């Protein structure tokens, strides 16, 4: 408790990067009304890695979509560096806040090659980089995520595997190096032995460049390994929050307890 207070105090001295205040999203109306996100508040500090953890239908992706301005909140607001994101210019916002989705390429124009997909990152950044420099930077970013640029640069989305597409999204995020990265199940199609390498890369990026990351995931192991803090979401509400080790080792909420009990671990065998 003392530790938590000290942590809170040190945080208060810093300005949060993102503040989510009383965020609510209601779909439908009348008797078809579904409250997908119900009065959710939290903040993300610069350089911090947090995870919004929940099962399917918990409202975690809807929350992420509102943070990315892909969906309008029904109530509440989101501040980025103290400014309401609805009042910001889209390009300015997305230059600083980027997302990795589970499979973004599935909704992409399949006539775009990997090259044109990545080169849009430079347009978004707005700073002038020569074509040859761009190419070198793309190749480097692809190499970092374990993709062979020579083989893949002019391939189209449907010619890549799910894992390759996810790696490519991460390469694009590397090129943009935003201040806040929203990563929605970014490695769900990547095998365990390669997944850790990619997560390490994102964690290094956060450590070295001060980038904040919010993972949106159902994978408790991933959240626990990467994150400073966890927010546990159930039925639209945040039911528990705190430093990762505390939440996992001493969960106080009933739902969190049940969730953790159902995750297969190595030390214990379930009583079935």
């Amino acid at each position: 408790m003392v530790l938590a207070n000290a942590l809170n105090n040190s945080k208060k001295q810093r300005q949060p990067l993102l503040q989510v205040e009383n965020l609510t999203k209601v779909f439908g109306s009348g008797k078809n009304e579904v409250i997908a996100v119900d009065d959710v508040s939290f903040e993300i500090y610069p350089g911090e890695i947090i995870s919004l953890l929940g099962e399917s239908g918990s409202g975690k992706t809807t929350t992420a979509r509102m943070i990315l301005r892909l969906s309008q909140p029904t109530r509440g607001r989101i501040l980025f560096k103290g400014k309401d994101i609805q009042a910001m210019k889209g390009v300015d916002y997305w230059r600083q806040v980027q997302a990795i989705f589970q499979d973004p390429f599935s909704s992409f124009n399949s006539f775009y090659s990997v090259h044109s997909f990545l080169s849009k990152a430079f347009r978004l950044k707005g700073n002038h980089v020569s074509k040859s420099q761009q190419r070198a930077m793309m190749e480097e970013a692809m190499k970092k995520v374990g993709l062979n640029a020579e083989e893949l640069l002019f391939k189209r989305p449907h010619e890549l595997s799910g894992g390759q597409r996810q790696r490519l999204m991460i390469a694009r995020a590397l090129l943009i190096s935003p201040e806040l990265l929203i990563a929605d199940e970014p490695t769900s199609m990547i095998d365990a032995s390669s997944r850790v390498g990619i997560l390490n890369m994102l964690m290094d990026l956060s450590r070295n460049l001060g980038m904040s990351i919010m993972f949106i995931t159902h994978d408790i192991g991933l959240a626990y390994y990467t994150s400073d803090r966890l927010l546990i979401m159930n039925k639209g509400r945040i039911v528990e929050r705190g430093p990762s080790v505390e939440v996992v080792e001493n969960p106080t909420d009933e739902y969190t307890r049940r969730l953790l009990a159902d995750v297969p671990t190595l030390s214990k065998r379930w009583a079935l």
Partner: protein
Amino acid sequence: MKNLLEAQNLKAYYRLVDGIQIRAVDGVTLELRPNEVLGIAGESGCGKSTLAAVISLTHNPPLHVIDGEVTANGFDLLRLPKEQARREIKGKYISVVPQGAMNALNPTQRVRNFAIDMLQEHQPDMTKQDAVDLARARLQELSLPERVLTSYPHELSGGMKQRTVIVLSTLLNPKVLIADEPTSALDVSSQRAVIRLLMTLLDEQIITSIAFITHELPLLRQVADRIAVMYAGKLVEVGTMEEIIFQPQHPYTKALMGSMLVPERHVREQRIEGIPGVPPDLKNPPAGCRFHPRCTQRIEWCTQEEPPPKTVGDRTTWCWLMH
């Protein structure tokens, strides 16, 4: 009691145009023993689902069995006439829940029609009413709601759909259930419910053994008696659950176990390193041990000759370091 199913030096390749072959399963020898859960583990493209398709006789071109045999219940399965396999083996001796099975339920049909089709396929003389009664009795026995039979698939949750598929696939009390990633798209609570159902089917002796195919080793820690680890079309290590999870010997098993992100203290106390590189192209796999290009412990032998199996007790390892 003898083994329920045996694969001997099984080779199954995908034959593409221009004579190109993908050697997805390349010389696998493995047995399923009575009263066990055998985990078959490995990452994408290692051949585990191909192996599942062949041993359940559900493989189709372009996948072809090139060599080896599969024996079960005294039959040489791969040489059994199709009609006989359908009448005497499939659904009755071996049943399979393929990957993504729960999404293969016909969305325009009530679930009971799947039960009727399934049962009449294997027992043509069974009436519709008998089929539905059998399914209802089994659901009751397993404390699952009968209403699933009159439901459409979209009215059921993912976990319930998967449990329904498993129950209906085992109505004829097959000895062997082959389950390919039965829980991979489910939330952890539904996952546990599916696992509980599988264990109940074993306890009630509705089925005798399970081949449980998954990429998730922590899950096998929960359910498996033995685990077979595959890499690039071959087995690298087979042993008891404790041996594979807690004392892996093969460098690939060790590295794979080391990459598991479970919510336990040791995971946060160190930087976990995955395995650099990617698995080999199975059109043209490397000589020697197939893991050698990514192995940190390789010696010269590994690049030249395939490691022979080394068996100690219940464990067999295919690695030159063991010789």
